[in-house]
């Protein structure tokens, strides 16, 4: 009897609770999670400077679906290494348009300072629930800059297992990029010409397609720990040269950029050919990436650690370690960040090409298939140290500021002293304001 009474009372209480709760549930409208930020990026020695405002907004559309949107504007100015190395003599180069020239002093790394670009990128992800345990996310992105257009689409399928403690993910993405560089597409291994003497070009634009496939598993380990492991395969097909990068042709007799004394082809006064040729990279690239991440909750603080192993058939192998420690200060927080990256050089990374060995002194023909002196393809190491401070404000909003120092050290082997690719120091300052809207 008493049990029956308790049951009755419990049902009544449940009904009252449900009735009280339902109007507010119905009235509750999905809200936008909005994150706004501006990033200032500055490289030392007058290289690249960037200002990047960005906005992200995401919201639940209904019980089964949500949408995430992002917009980023990227304003770049400054100078970028053109691929030629420093030399004990002054060097003159022609701008990509072929109309004017610039000079690097003796001992100075040649930088093309005509670099100025604005990029606008927009992306959207739409997640749809398929059933109680699985969902698919459709993604799209477009990125446009003065000489570059990137269009992409992706699909990510995720399914939960083991009481939602395990999530298996499989994803597929396709991107098509079109490059339309100032002056057109340079002819590979053809020489840069003196300003106003015509340019070696083979068409206005070119393109590449990028296909990515990923499988991953996310596992809840305990109340405090979650882990993720992803394996990705990617393939890029098409034009992958940097149209603004050249390779120096040296005369082994002098160790200096080729001149009339060693090559009739590089007799600049007569032929208009400068001792630099446009780089050449393979038109396919296959990548494999293994990525591991774990997030662990201590008593108050949170550790976020990731490791990535990257390998491709250009010979690039890299290891990336990333550690963030969120130190709670009773509401606000401090977050130190450490990132370590090491990379092996691409097989075709070349300091320069030599007359009589790699280059025919008479015809200028290059005997290699591929060569690039782009420092990003060299053996290198990047260390990033940063600190972020975040403070909660009224109405679930938050303000944060982040500062980071990036140091990139390039190891281009045993090259003559003074010709080494310069190291890079970059600084980041970022302000974030996030809110619920």
């Amino acid at each position, binding site marked *: 009897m008493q049990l029956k009474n308790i049951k009755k009372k419990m049902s009544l209480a449940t009904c009252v609770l449900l009735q009280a709760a339902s109007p507010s549930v119905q009235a509750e409208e999905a809200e936008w999670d909005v994150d706004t930020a501006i990033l200032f990026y500055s490289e030392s020695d007058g290289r690249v400077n960037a200002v990047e405002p960005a906005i992200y907004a995401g919201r639940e559309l209904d019980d089964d679906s949500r949408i995430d949107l992002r917009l980023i504007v990227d304003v770049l100015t400054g100078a970028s290494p053109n691929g030629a190395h420093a030399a004990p003599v002054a060097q003159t180069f022609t701008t990509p348009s072929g109309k004017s020239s610039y000079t690097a002093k003796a001992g100075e790394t040649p930088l093309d300072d005509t670099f100025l670009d604005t990029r606008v990128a927009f992306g959207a992800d739409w997640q749809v629930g398929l059933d109680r345990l699985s969902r698919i996310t459709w993604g799209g992105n477009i990125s446009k800059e003065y000489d570059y257009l990137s269009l992409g689409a992706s699909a990510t399928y995720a399914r939960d*297992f083991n009481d939602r403690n395990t999530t298996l993910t499989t994803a597929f993405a396709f991107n098509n990029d079109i490059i339309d560089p100032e002056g057109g597409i340079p002819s590979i291994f053809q020489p840069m010409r003196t300003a106003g003497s015509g340019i070696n070009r083979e068409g206005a634009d070119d393109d590449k397609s990028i296909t990515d496939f990923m499988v991953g598993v996310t596992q809840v380990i305990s109340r405090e720990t979650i882990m993720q492991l992803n394996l990705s395969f990617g393939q890029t097909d098409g034009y992958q040269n940097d149209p603004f990068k050249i390779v120096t042709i040296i005369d082994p007799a002098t160790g200096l950029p080729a001149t009339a004394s060693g090559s009739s082809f590089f007799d600049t006064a007569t032929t208009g050919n400068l001792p630099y040729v446009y780089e050449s990279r393979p038109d396919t690239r296959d990548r494999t990436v293994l990525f591991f991440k774990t997030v662990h909750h201590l008593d108050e603080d949170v550790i976020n650690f990731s490791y990535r192993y990257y390998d491709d058939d250009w010979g690039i192998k890299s290891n990336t370690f990333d550690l963030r420690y969120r130190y709670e200060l009773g509401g606000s927080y401090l977050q130190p960040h450490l990132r370590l990256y090491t990379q092996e050089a691409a097989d075709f990374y070349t300091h320069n090409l030599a007359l009589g060995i790699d280059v025919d002194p008479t015809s200028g023909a290059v005997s290699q298939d591929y060569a690039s002196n782009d420092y990003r393809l060299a053996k290198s190491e990047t260390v990033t140290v940063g600190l972020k401070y975040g403070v909660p404000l009224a109405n679930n909003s938050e303000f944060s500021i982040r500062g980071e120092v990036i140091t990139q050290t390039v190891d281009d082997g045993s090259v003559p002293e003074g010709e080494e690719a310069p190291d890079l120091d*970059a600084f980041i300052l970022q302000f974030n304001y996030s809110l619920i809207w």
Partner: protein
Amino acid sequence: MRTFILIFIMSFLSACSSLGVEPWERDLLAKDSMQLVPDYLDNFYDEHIYFSKEASSGGQGVGGGGCGCN
């Protein structure tokens, strides 16, 4: 390769079945700071910066867009 992926998935599923928490033990996991990508824009900026300075990219997901970064 297909066999490898299948073994990869199956071994994880069987190994993972003994791990995890009950639904009422997800309080910490639900916190913003416990998400795999807790700061969306920080992550987006970082991916873009390192994509333009290093020869490796990807791992966390797929897509996201390219650029003609110098």
